[in-house]
């Protein structure tokens, strides 16, 4: 089980997220029993799995939090904002510890202290008269006589390295949805099992069928780590003993887990089944092809072979398409796994800055490629930090400006065609172009005349220039020498674009537009000045041919009338800097009509050559960010096709 860490981290983060979501809902409606139940279950499950590792302060904190949630469930305590805040603190701490465990494989040195403080807070809250409980001592001298008992009871147990487990389910485990036998059944290499009672059964008419009084003693031939993994959800209820001399093996198992942890993907079984089905079909298609090959060798008539090859090609085409779709779908994961980490981080940022900032998250269910989830964390964190630091004003200034004292930052995602658009919007003071100009002048970013000629929007865009930083005082948070240029680079690296808009006094908005995944793009291939270029079909409204006499000169440009609309005409060869192509006089013009935000534009090309479904790869390396290039694609004959981003090229 090399990926035990990963599983724990992935599950842990999911649980922290769902508990966090439920707590946010509880903050609005503190007495929602379903939400309290949900948080209880999440904390309970997380606590169980912390027992797998040496994370005692973590488990202890969750244990006390679970007690508090239990009291809320029983309605022994009435929930209020203070209690919810305390639970949010616990969940935040859990999230922090998961990050620490991810980075270092252990909890930070102050974990016991931090955990204790939270536990004391909770205890005081549950019973104001209770003194702070002294540190709980390790369980004294664990009774291990059961190991001998089960070995005696099952004489047929094999010799060698074994793992003995005593699983004493919590009394209320049926209420939390556990089915202990199902867990025992899942223990790998089970070679002995005894069922006993924790307490004597007593008078049967007082027996409570919903209180678990069973104790399971089991022996397994499987490695300790595998047994641990099977029981990871109830690890706090387990006593695990290695019989024989397998101590070294245990240590090897726990140290080997770090290196392999980097990249895992949790995949639904259904997706794997779907892939398997496609693989089966491909095998069948391949057999048919082999049959055709045999026929070709045997001298079957050409016409018959052609039929077979065509049919086979169609089948393979369909299968390759579905294979690609299935794999793409597997790589998709919800943005929530990324977004979930920000509320806590923003609270910390706000606390450091002494600002009260609310984060509103929207669209976190949108699914994007895993590479995007991995690559967006730092840029988004940077943008949120910037918004809190430079955007949101101190509470006093906000009140003066007639705004609520609490700043608000919204992080929202939505899907537009095959792109995901992420907006980070704050209701802060906005960006003052005059101040940007002043800074740019002070830094000598460009000659004064050029600077003066910039529009306000162009001035604001200077923020993306490498080395630009507007903060007058370099703060601990935002002024670490990584500016907005690094954010832009990250967005470009992911095949996306970034834009910033700001209204002085009312806020700033940064928009990231990124491809959801590497998808097959429908591309139209055009010829221009002897070269071939691809243009994504989704950019093209229509393709038309017009006789040259429909073109009318407009000032120093050209235009034509398309269904009562005057559409300006641009030459692709000029856009690409290839110089005007001398088209044969009198020949029809071939036009790609493109939609831009401010209307239609027609681009003149020499010829339409093909329509293809291509795997579009974003530009990489030195070409990253070359304006006007959407990416490249490899053609069937091995040539590389440059795919143009016409809207950007025209802009």
């Amino acid at each position, binding site marked *: 089980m090399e990926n035990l860490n990963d599983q724990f981290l992935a599950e842990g983060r999911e649980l922290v997220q769902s508990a966090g979501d439920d707590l946010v809902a509880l903050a609005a409606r503190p007495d929602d029993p379903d939400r309290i139940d949900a948080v209880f279950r999440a904390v309970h499950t997380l606590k169980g799995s912390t027992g797998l590792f040496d994370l005692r302060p973590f488990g202890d904190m969750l244990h006390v939090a679970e007690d508090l949630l239990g009291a809320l469930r029983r309605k022994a305590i009435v929930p209020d904002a203070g209690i919810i805040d305390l639970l949010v603190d616990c969940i935040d701490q859990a999230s922090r510890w998961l990050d620490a465990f991810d980075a270092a494989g252990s909890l930070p040195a102050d974990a016991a202290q931090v955990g204790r403080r939270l536990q004391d807070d909770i205890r005081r809250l549950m019973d104001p008269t209770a003194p702070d409980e002294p540190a709980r001592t390790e369980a004294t001298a664990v009774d291990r006589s059961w190991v001998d008992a089960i070995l005696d009871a099952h004489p047929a147990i094999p010799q060698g390295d074994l793992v003995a487990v005593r699983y004493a*389910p919590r009394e209320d485990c*049926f209420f939390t949805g*556990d*089915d*202990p*036998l*199902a867990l025992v*059944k899942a223990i790998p290499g*089970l070679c002995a*099992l*005894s*069922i006993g*009672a924790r307490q004597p*059964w007593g008078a*049967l*008419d007082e*027996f409570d*069928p*919903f209180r*678990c*009084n*069973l104790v399971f003693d089991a022996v397994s031939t499987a490695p300790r780590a595998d047994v641990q993994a099977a029981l990871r959800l109830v690890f706090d209820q387990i006593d695990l003993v290695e019989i024989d001399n397998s101590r070294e093996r245990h240590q090897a198992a726990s140290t080997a887990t770090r290196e392999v942890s980097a990249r895992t993907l949790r995949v639904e079984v259904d997706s794997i089944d779907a892939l398997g089905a496609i693989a089966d079909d491909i095998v069948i298609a391949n057999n048919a092809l082999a049959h055709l090959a045999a026929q070709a060798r045997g001298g079957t008539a050409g016409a018959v072979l052609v039929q077979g090859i065509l049919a086979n090609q169609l089948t393979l085409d369909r299968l390759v398409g579905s294979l690609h779709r299935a794999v793409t779908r597997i790589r998709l994961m919800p943005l929530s796994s990324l977004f979930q980490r920000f509320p806590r981080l923003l609270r910390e940022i706000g606390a450091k800055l002494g600002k009260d900032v609310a984060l509103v998250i929207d669209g976190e269910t949108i699914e994007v490629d895993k590479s995007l989830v991995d690559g967006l964390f730092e840029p988004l964190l940077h943008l949120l930090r910037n918004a809190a630091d430079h955007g949101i004003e101190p509470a006093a200034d906000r009140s003066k400006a007639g705004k609520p004292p609490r700043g608000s930052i919204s992080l929202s995602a939505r899907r537009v065609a095959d792109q995901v658009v992420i907006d980070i919007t704050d209701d802060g003071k906005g960006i003052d172009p005059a101040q940007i100009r002043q800074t740019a002048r002070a830094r000598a970013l460009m000659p004064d005349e050029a600077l003066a000629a910039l529009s306000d929007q162009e001035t604001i865009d200077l923020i993306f220039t490498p080395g630009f930083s507007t903060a007058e005082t370099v703060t601990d948070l935002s002024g670490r020498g990584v500016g907005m240029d690094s954010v832009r680079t990250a967005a470009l690296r992911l095949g996306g674009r970034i834009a910033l808009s700001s209204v002085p006094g009312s806020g700033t908005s940064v928009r990231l537009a990124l491809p959801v995944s590497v998808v097959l793009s429908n591309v139209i291939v055009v010829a221009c000045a002897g070269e071939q270029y691809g243009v994504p079909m989704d950019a093209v409204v229509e393709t038309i041919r017009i006789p040259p006499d429909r073109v009318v000169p407009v000032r120093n440009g050209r235009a034509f009338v398309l269904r009562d609309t005057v559409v300006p005409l641009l030459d692709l060869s000029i856009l690409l800097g290839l110089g005007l192509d001398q088209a044969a006089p009198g020949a029809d013009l071939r036009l790609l009509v493109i939609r831009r935000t401010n209307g239609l534009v027609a681009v003149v090309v020499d010829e339409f050559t093909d329509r293809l479904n291509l795997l579009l790869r974003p530009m990489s390396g030195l070409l990253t960010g070359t304006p006007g290039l959407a990416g490249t694609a490899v053609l069937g004959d091995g040539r590389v096709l440059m795919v143009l981003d016409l809207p950007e090229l025209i802009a």
Partner: protein
Amino acid sequence: MTVRLDGTLIRLEGRCHVEDAEPLFVLLLAVPGRPVDWSGAETLHTAVVQVLVAFGAPVLGDNRDDFIRRWIAPTLTRVRADT
């Protein structure tokens, strides 16, 4: 109907969930020592098994689940012998 009285016999059938522990408990409490036929049970929740163990109920027939047959059935026989 996952738990039902059939003459003097209690029959467990289909998938027996946690909530089936209660009716089974009531039937066994009414007439202790009633035999339980579990050959029709597809799955047994721990809570149901716990009632059988607690009452030392004599079970009839072969359970369909290998795991139950191998590990639980002998336990029940032994529990019954003890009581």
